[in-house]
């Protein structure tokens, strides 16, 4: 293969462009330099990995070298399991055991683990974790077709132009963060990384001086911006900002929409899931003030339906989505990689209503899922980890996990001495890799049960909510 002709996804058309593609606090790469870096790395890696379509575990952080790693792997048609470098060693070990990757990639280097070919579905390209940095949850399997379809649909509504500079604050291991990367690369725009957080002066100097033309964030990001009096800042170069990854409080949405209106910017409220590559819907910016809780309408090529029991012609029910960005399926172990039977409709697990203008609003959730700092957490997975930790600590009373957005509540139905309490919390902080502020441990007398003997989570939620008031 001639490396100059390596088909690098997203950036093929910008092969000769002298525009800046990526920048961090010290370096930058033009599109031409990025293409050459990918070609060089591809050449190096092919000396080390001779296998066709190896499964690689890639630790991706928000850095120039990680983007080169990622584009190199996609160009070489590797099957890539993308992980947040912040995930614990235990989590990495669990993925290693479940999926037996051929190699590990991080920081520009590939390390070969074994040369046993793993049969994979020809469409499979990318595996994204559904649990963020929390535990080794099942993965969402995506094809390059999924990635391209979603990228194009987003480019059809977000006003991304080649002159843009976006600041990538979301982790690239997270589908929303990855979609920001894909769309800007495809548009030939610049993506800026920084190690500074919004609470550093240098962050805002960067925003003003680059200058940054767009921002993307989850609810907690905008809560921080509002706390920092974002809506009083003069940021003339900022053209638009997007929010997804969970529901932002109505007052905050309204505050941001008013700021956008006054300063001639656009505020996009969006909806998606990793199962749909990233994006499924967005609300037209001019409607945000009027419908601050709405997620709007499906992206180009996408379609929603509401399902209530057997009835599928209703205005309230579980939200289903269909489109080219719907995943191939889930992967929990290496045998799942062989063949996928993608379902046409994706059940989102969210309950929604649709108004007469065709705008959708999420009103609740069907599944045991919460969002923590924008990332989805399956409470059943957390519960399994919690029960394991309890067993290790020799605590044998019934226990379970419930939660709301940004709060995991571990429940223990029995006696817990103060010392044990601290031990349980410490074990959870460690195994979930979560800050203590997102965890709560509640002791109750007994778990409420349903007729079938299963835990009555709804009842438990109600009871503990009442206790907090």
């Amino acid at each position: 293969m001639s490396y100059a002709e390596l088909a690098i996804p997203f950036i093929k058309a910008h092969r000769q462009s002298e525009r800046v593609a990526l920048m961090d606090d010290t370096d930058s790469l033009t599109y031409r330099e990025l293409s050459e870096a990918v070609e060089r790395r591809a050449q190096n890696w092919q000396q080390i990995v001779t296998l066709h379509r190896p499964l690689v575990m890639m630790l991706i952080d928000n850095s120039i070298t990680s983007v080169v790693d990622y584009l190199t792997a996609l160009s070489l048609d590797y099957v890539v399991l993308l992980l947040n470098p912040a995930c614990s060693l235990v989590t990495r070990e669990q993925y290693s055991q479940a999926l037996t990757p051929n190699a590990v990639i991080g920081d520009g280097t590939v390390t070969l683990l074994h040369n046993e070919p793993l049969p994979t579905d020809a469409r499979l390209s990318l595996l994204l974790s559904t649990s963020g940095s929390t535990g080794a949850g099942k993965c969402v399997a995506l094809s390059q077709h999924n990635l391209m379809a979603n990228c194009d649909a987003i480019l059809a509504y977000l006003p991304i132009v080649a002159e843009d500079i976006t600041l990538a604050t979301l982790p690239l291991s997270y589908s929303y963060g990855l979609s920001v990367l894909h769309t800007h690369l495809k548009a030939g725009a610049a993506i800026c990384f920084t190690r500074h957080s919004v609470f550093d002066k240098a962050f805002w100097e960067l925003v003003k001086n680059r200058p940054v033309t767009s921002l993307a964030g989850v609810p907690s990001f905008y809560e921080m911006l509002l706390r920092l009096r974002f809506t009083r800042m003069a940021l003339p170069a900022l053209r638009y900002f997007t929010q997804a990854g969970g529901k932002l409080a109505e007052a905050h949405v309204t505050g941001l929409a008013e700021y956008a209106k006054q300063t001639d910017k656009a505020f996009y409220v969006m909806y998606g899931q990793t199962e749909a590559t990233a994006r499924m819907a967005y609300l037209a910016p001019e409607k945000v003030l009027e419908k601050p809780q709405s997620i709007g309408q499906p992206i180009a090529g996408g379609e929603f339906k509401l399902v209530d029991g057997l009835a599928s012609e209703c205005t309230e029910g579980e939200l289903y989505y269909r489109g080219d960005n719907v995943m191939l399926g889930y992967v929990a172990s290496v045998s799942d990689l062989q063949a996928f039977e993608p379902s046409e409709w994706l059940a989102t697990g969210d309950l929604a209503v649709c108004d007469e203008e065709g705008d959708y609003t999420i009103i609740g959730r069907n599944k045991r899922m919460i969002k923590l700092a924008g990332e989805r957490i399956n409470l059943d997975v957390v519960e399994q980890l919690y029960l394991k930790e309890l067993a290790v600590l020799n605590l044998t009373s019934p226990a379970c996990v419930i939660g709301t957005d940004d709060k995991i509540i571990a429940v223990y139905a029995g006696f817990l001495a103060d010392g044990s309490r601290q031990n349980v919390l410490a074990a959870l902080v460690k195994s979930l890799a979560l800050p203590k502020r997102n965890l709560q441990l509640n002791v109750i007398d007994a778990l409420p049960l349903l007729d079938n003997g299963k835990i009555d989570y709804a009842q438990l939620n109600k009871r503990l909510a009442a206790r907090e008031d």
Partner: protein
Amino acid sequence: MDTQQQLQQAFSDALGIPPEKVTDGLTYNTIPEWDSTAHMVLIAELENVFDVMLDTDDIIDMSSVAQAKLILQKYDVTFV
């Protein structure tokens, strides 16, 4: 409770660390408990406890316990 104790308690509550760990030298991003999200909780807590509304620059400059005291003094909170 005097203002020093109030400050200590506010840091302790917001960061989820024992009050005795709240010393003047404690600095943002040097302990896992004091990350950007906790910083937001901390600012809210300080604004509540001392009934002030901090400016963007002051929120960003509040990078240590000692710094917090200096900044709060600008808002007429005195520490003995």
